[in-house]
């Protein structure tokens, strides 16, 4: 019975999304929405196809992709290291805890102009901002992960006289991996948002810049096409990570 309901939920959801997409197509065509506000979905897709086919959009796609990857790797590595330090030094943790807890309540992007003012209008402020935005999710989750390692396992490591590095590599990191992965999963999302939002605000290239550039040059179809591309990239990256998670920790092993 519940499987039948699941199927009904899934079907309805697909229909709702299809209806929303259809509305995006029909509303501007039927004149329900001003043609200077919204272009039909098919026009967006065609323009997007043209932009990719002609290779015009590709440099921006690659630039954004590289910066997302760069800031994500930076956030992942630094996040695990800082998370480990927080686990090891309780005083440090007690000091930073309230800031880490309210970190995502702060408008971190207000520091983007600061970074641009310091480093100039290039890729550095974008990567730094995305890194700063993404790393705290890894720090928090990694620290929780190191907490979750069973004391017995640490004692066993001590019995075998493993060095701190060996304990970390052989015992703590594998045991903390699910939590670390949860942090990395969030970090992917934050890297994507950090890079694209920074580019959108102020940059000279990238997918976010493409949206703002097309808006400023009144190229409506191109603007919607680049928004579509931004959303597609975000959805693809997040689904890839979810897929990877399901591959690494299948449901039956989680229980």
């Amino acid at each position, binding site marked *: 019975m519940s499987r039948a309901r699941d199927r009904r*939920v899934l079907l309805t959801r697909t229909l709702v999304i299809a209806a929303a997409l259809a509305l995006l197509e029909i509303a501007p065509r039927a004149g329900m929405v001003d043609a200077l506000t*919204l272009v039909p979905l098919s026009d967006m897709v065609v323009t997007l196809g043209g932009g990719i086919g002609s290779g015009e959009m590709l440099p921006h796609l690659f630039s954004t992709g590289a910066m997302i990857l760069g800031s994500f790797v930076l956030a992942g590595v630094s996040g695990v290291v800082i998370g480990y330090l927080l686990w090891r030094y309780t005083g440090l943790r*007690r000091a930073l805890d309230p800031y*880490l807890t309210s970190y995502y309540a702060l408008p971190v992007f207000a520091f983007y*102009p600061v970074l641009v*003012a310091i480093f100039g209008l290039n890729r550095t402020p974008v990567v730094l901002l995305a890194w700063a935005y993404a790393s705290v999710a890894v720090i928090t989750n990694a620290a929780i992960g190191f907490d979750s390692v069973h004391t017995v396992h640490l004692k066993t490591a001590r019995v075998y006289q493993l060095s701190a590095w060996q304990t970390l590599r052989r015992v703590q990191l594998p045991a903390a991996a699910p939590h670390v992965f949860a942090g990395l999963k969030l970090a992917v999302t934050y890297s*994507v948002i950090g890079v694209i939002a920074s580019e*959108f605000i102020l940059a000279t290239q990238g997918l976010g810049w493409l949206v703002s550039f097309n808006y400023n040059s009144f190229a409506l179809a191109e603007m919607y096409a*680049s928004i579509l591309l931004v959303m597609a990239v975000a959805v693809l990256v997040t689904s890839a990570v979810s897929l990877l998670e399901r591959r690494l920790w299948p449901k039956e092993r989680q229980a």
Partner: protein
Amino acid sequence: MMDSAATTLSSPAQPPRGRGRKSGKVPRLGPGGAPALVPVVLVVVWQLATFFVSESALPTPLATGRAFVDGVRDGWLTTNLWATLQVVLAAFAIAAAGGLAVGVWLGLQRFWGDVLGAPLLWSYALPKITIFPIFLLIFGLGDASRMAFGAFHGFFPLAILVLGGINAIPRVYLRAARSLHLSRWTTVTRVVFPAALPSVLSGLRFCFSLCFLGVVLAEMFGSSEGAGYELIRRITLRELPEIFALALSLMAISLLLNLLMLTAERRLVSHGTATTRRSNR
């Protein structure tokens, strides 16, 4: 997703492990002492960094402090912060009303909650700021567009958390309400709302933060006033101390407001459980 980002690090139930135990013996500051040291350490590091970099690349803490005082005296700092805050408050009012309404509706209609809950959650991973131009096209360049975008930006976490909070209410409560023949409105105000209060309150807090971020992002892109606009404008003027002062003020304001809401939340939630306990007796 939202919850794991917000989890507190300290777990009082667990004793510190490993090396941490040793540091417990070291005489330490009071409970609020260690966090208060963090800004001090940051300012010292910042001051040290300015010794190695030219003043034009990194302003000193002193210059930033002076820019802050001048900004308050001249009024440009306070005017812009206040302009932003006003829009944020209006956006928050809209987002709170919308998020609560949609969250409660989806929470009570189980089927539609299941249908639309997942898409609401997906929206969290999207860089929503890139659709701000659409708001500009619809609402024009004035206050309305950034207010609408701020509300849109803050709406999702509230709707998601309220929906989750209502789904977590024991079914017995709702069944009891039905057997007492309570009206829909009474069920919502007397049963659903108090039971889901913790999620509602943290949802409101997230909602406010994201409205704030949404408005600042929108101002940085296209606006003619507000803190975000001022931050971008002063880059071209290369007024670094002013940019630092404004960015830090924004951080301080949102941090303070967040702590305030957190405190109110804790007080209200413990108060709420106390009254339910009394009425249970």
